[in-house]
């Protein structure tokens, strides 16, 4: 297998069974190489979010095969998949999902502490480094619920980057932000992709956003119509 392939999905099918069986993904195959900045677009309900949840290993109810870093994800236990998410995947959601009980710095540190490779001091340095990169180091000591939406999303990006993941997955990262903040977030992604060679997979319905990425995957009715 090609060393440069970060993520590969082969013939992925998925249906919802409640109350009648509705296929949502039909024979989806895609490959993402290291350093690519890929966006997935399509109309609402075309299955792009569903695909992202399968690729992120959170949804295990599908047919077909998924490889992350060349490793097959099928047949793994919930604990092993959690480890994969912790180690290799960074997440950014539409609704920023920070833990309000913790400070910004602690939010960023949590996945790093969970990984358990570095000491707490080292994880703290890494987290500050990520916050510096995103220009929000001044927010480190604030509680998560004291931030604005744009700030929260940047913290979420910093958290996604803490373990230097092989891929960062984003679900409508700008969907809940105003124009100005959307631009800031996009610039961050662009910078990550170009300067840090960070692999990014972004699900969005923002056409302007999609056009500015390296590669756009278009979906319709559960199929990929253009990659």
């Amino acid at each position, binding site marked *: 297998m090609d060393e440069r392939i970060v993520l590969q999905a082969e013939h992925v099918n998925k249906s919802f069974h409640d109350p009648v069986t509705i296929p949502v993904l039909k024979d989806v195959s895609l490959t993402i190489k290291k350093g690519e900045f890929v966006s997935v677009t399509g109309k609402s309900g075309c299955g792009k979010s569903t695909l992202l949840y399968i690729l992120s290993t959170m949804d295990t109810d599908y047919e077909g095969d998924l490889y992350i870093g060349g490793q097959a994800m099928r047949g793994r236990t*919930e604990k092993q998949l*959690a480890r994969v*998410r912790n*180690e290799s995947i960074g997440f950014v959601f539409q609704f920023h999902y920070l*833990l309000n009980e*913790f400070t910004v710095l602690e939010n960023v540190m*949590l996945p790093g502490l*969970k990984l358990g490779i570095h000491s707490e001091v080292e994880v703290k340095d890494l987290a500050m480094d990520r916050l510096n990169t995103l220009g929000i180091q001044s927010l480190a000591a604030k509680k998560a619920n004291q931030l604005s939406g744009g700030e929260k999303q940047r913290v979420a990006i910093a958290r996604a980057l803490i373990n230097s993941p092989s891929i960062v997955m984003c679900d409508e990262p700008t969907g809940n932000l105003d124009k100005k903040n959307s631009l800031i977030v996009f610039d961050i992604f662009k910078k990550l992709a170009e300067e840090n060679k960070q692999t990014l997979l972004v699900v969005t319905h923002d056409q302007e956003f999609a056009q500015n990425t390296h590669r756009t995957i278009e979906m319709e009715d559960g199929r990929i119509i253009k990659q």
Partner: protein
Amino acid sequence: MNVRLIIRIAKALLLARWKQTLVAAIGVTFSITMFITLLSFMTGLNDLLDGLILNRTAHIRLFNEIKPNLDQPINQSKDYQGSYNFIRSIKSGNSRQEIYNSQAIMQALRKDNRVTGVAPKITAQVFFNDGSIDITGVINGIDAREESSLFHFSDYVTQGNPLDIQNVSNSIILGKGLAAKLLANIGDVVLVTTAKQQQFSLKVVGFFQSGLQELDKVQSYASIGTTQKILGKPSDYITDIQLKMVDVNQAPPVAKEFAKLFNADAEDIQTANSQFETGSSVRSLISYSVGIVLLIVAGFGIYNILNMMIYEKMDSIAILKATGFSGLDVNRIFLVIALSIGFFGGLLGLFFGFLLSMLIDQIPFNTPSLPTIRTYPINYNPAFYLIASIFSLVTTYLAGWAPSRKASKVDPVIIIRGK
């Protein structure tokens, strides 16, 4: 590292909703407090009531029972060796009530390291003569010093000095009820008639009150020597030897052993007073049940609060799972929350339970039947505190089990998609 992280997250979640946490912890504190107090008080009372009888009862009593000889002459006859011999209307023989060779037995027993103390005793049935009326009574011939050290005799002598029966010749300590019947005061002389129709005058040197009125109406105490004189017996005449054991539970087998060894009857405390054991165990059972019910109620409180917390924290659970925490980690986080409520609530409960017990211990409690008791009895047994802390952890663990399981099963996709 993982454990510390889990505890850290649990702590943050707990402190974020500190009011709820406090309510849950107060529930545990309250039930542990009540559990400790209830058990300490109930057991204190149990010990008091048992002590009424058991403190004054020998662990093993050696005596000779009047009973028909089991080895009747016909059984010894060679002619009837092979047959069943039915004998009717056997009478007890002229067997002696005294223990044969009592001095040697007592010496042997004092050397036995399973025995903490030995006290001789003679019981004599007498009539107390009050004018034309005869009142039946019992004179117990005792060694006042031994009796006090082994059976707390001096505690129950409410007036007079217990040692006077040794020092004043022909003296007696009367039960309070008996003294009232005889209208006898200290210094008075009472007249007794033995079963063999001999009359004696005895000087009253004290009163005793056992707490059991029926007993006080018939019992009286004199020295061994005085009692032997009343009965017209020699100075080695002893009818009972009372033993205190190092380990009470050893009494039944040791009693059997001594019965065989000394060729006498032996009765152990468990057989003689089985009803007290039953009473105590039922009372303990009731207090334990009430305590456990209190804890279960507190457990339901914790269950509710954890359930609510999980609904509130669905987003946080989803994000933890998305960023690499497994279901097991989430499960542990909520279990740690439940257990820390149990731990800290329980710890406070132990403290308040101790305080409340001390408070009850100060409340005056005077009753004529219990002369040695001034305040309500409390038993500060560390075992209750141990049981209470184990219970508080177990209950909170069980209360947290189902909600934690639920939290670990939260599907992050549903939460993230549901927004």
